[in-house]
């Protein structure tokens, strides 16, 4: 039997890598595609979502025995929406530039299905420590993947990463990367790549197991 600490770590890593919300669970697609034209947006959106996810997971887990099953959906939504409103107001006050470039996607964290899905499928069934780890893992997994996506899009769409010029001066930015088609296609191609890597790793593991046996 694994000890408690071990399972918490495992829950955290599960969200970060194994069940990465973007590449495995395919949740929260709208902000993933909508804000990822610049790497700084990706990180900002990711961290804002992580904050809401961690808080809502913790609260819902604490309240899971009090909330009646019938009204759980409205109850979850109110909890999530409260944290989103906090983040929204905080960012408007202290990070006005980031808040402006993320636009309406901040209030829309409420309907980001990652948060709702984790509340329903994890926090409602597990203790607060586990739920906290799950929220943190999922949130950082989401942050990592949308930052990666936004780095690729910014590199080709503007020739920069985090605003620093990477491509040579003569590079002509590929404007379509900043638009809707670029987002869809880049994410699709990245998903193919991730799936291919996963398959190779899986094959290797199986081969190693076979060799051991």
């Amino acid at each position, binding site marked *: 039997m694994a000890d408690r600490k071990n399972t918490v770590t495992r829950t955290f890593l599960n969200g970060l890598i194994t069940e990465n919300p973007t590449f495995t669970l395919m949740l929260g697609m709208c902000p993933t595609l909508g804000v990822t034209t610049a790497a700084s947006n990706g990180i900002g959106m990711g961290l804002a979502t992580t904050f809401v996810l961690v808080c809502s997971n913790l609260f819902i887990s604490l309240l899971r025995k009090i909330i009646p099953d019938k009204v759980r959906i409205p109850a979850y939504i109110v909890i999530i929406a409260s944290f989103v409103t906090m983040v929204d107001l905080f960012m408007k006050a202290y990070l006005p530039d980031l808040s402006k470039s993320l636009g309406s996607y901040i209030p829309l964290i409420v309907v980001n299905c990652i948060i709702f899905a984790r509340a329903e499928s994890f926090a409602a069934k597990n203790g607060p420590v586990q739920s906290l780890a799950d929220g943190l893992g999922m949130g950082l997994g989401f942050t990592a993947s949308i930052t990666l996506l936004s780095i690729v899009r910014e590199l080709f769409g503007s020739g920069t990463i985090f605003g620093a010029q990477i491509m040579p001066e003569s590079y*002509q930015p*590929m*404007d*379509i990367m900043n*638009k809707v*088609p670029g987002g869809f*296609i880049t994410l699709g*191609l990245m998903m193919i790549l991730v799936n291919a890597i996963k398959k190779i790793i899986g094959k290797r593991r199986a081969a190693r197991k076979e060799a051991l046996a």
Partner: protein
Amino acid sequence: MQIKNIAITPSPHVRSSVSTRRLMQEVCLALAPAGIASVILFGAPAAVIIAASVITCVLAEYLYQRLMKQKVTVGDWSAVVTGLLLAYNIPAGAPVWIPIVGGIFAIIIVKQLFGGIGSNFMNPALTARAVLFVSWNAIMIKYPQTVFLAKGRVGLDAVSGATPLAELGKVFTGAEGASLSNVSLLDLLLGNCAGVLGETCKIALILGGVYLIVRKVIDWRIPVSMIGTVAVMYLLTSGFNLGLTARELLSGGLMLGAFFMATDYCTSPQTNKGRLIFGAGCGLLLFVIRAYASYPEGCSFAILFMNVCTPLIDRWTAPRYFGEVRKHG
């Protein structure tokens, strides 16, 4: 429905005897006059673009199929057709990397990812053109004048002329100083006007298109309904101004699109009724985009949009689904 076979079954009566390769060779032959005309009109830069585009497309298909350990099908000439069509949609004098990037996008992302010939749902050359157009707009709308118009000036790149479409657009909206007499019908027919390299010489395109229809390589329904719809729309909105309508029909990418791109087998409907609807839709959207939207030429976007609608048109014009159209207004 034998979707897998569409690439080799353009219409029922020629199903048995033809192969993809022969059809594609016929298309290349039909495209040749316009290509030759473009080299005459725009000089060496046109030849460079055509070569770069065709080589990129064929090479991209070959390398992808080798890499993926698939059967190499470059021998079916379809990549050559895509390369030609893509080149015809690029202005002469564009940097060489433009057709290269476009060719890779067309072949790999639009065609091969979905399973190669017969499986793509959007026209590869047109999609690549739209990507180039949106990404590097400044390059893609830098239309050089033809050698004949630029005579006495410094060189090809020195002038990037207004296209006849821009002038006609002004006539259409009734702008001051715009007049139909600025656009010569003969110049339009011969291709002596600014534009992307393959679309200007209308005589060559019409010749190629009629050849394909006569040889039953393409179905007459799509080009006829597309060009007809554009004509009707311009006649109606311009108060039956025949001069304007004729010039609109002969400018921009309409002829190239109607004969060679809207008729692509796997991206247009299979039913006869569907083809008429498809052509009319292309014509209507072309008119709307050309006359009102911010892009100067609507042909590629109109055809692409109808490409997207094709599976539904097929579904709702196939006899067994009859009547279901009404459900979705």
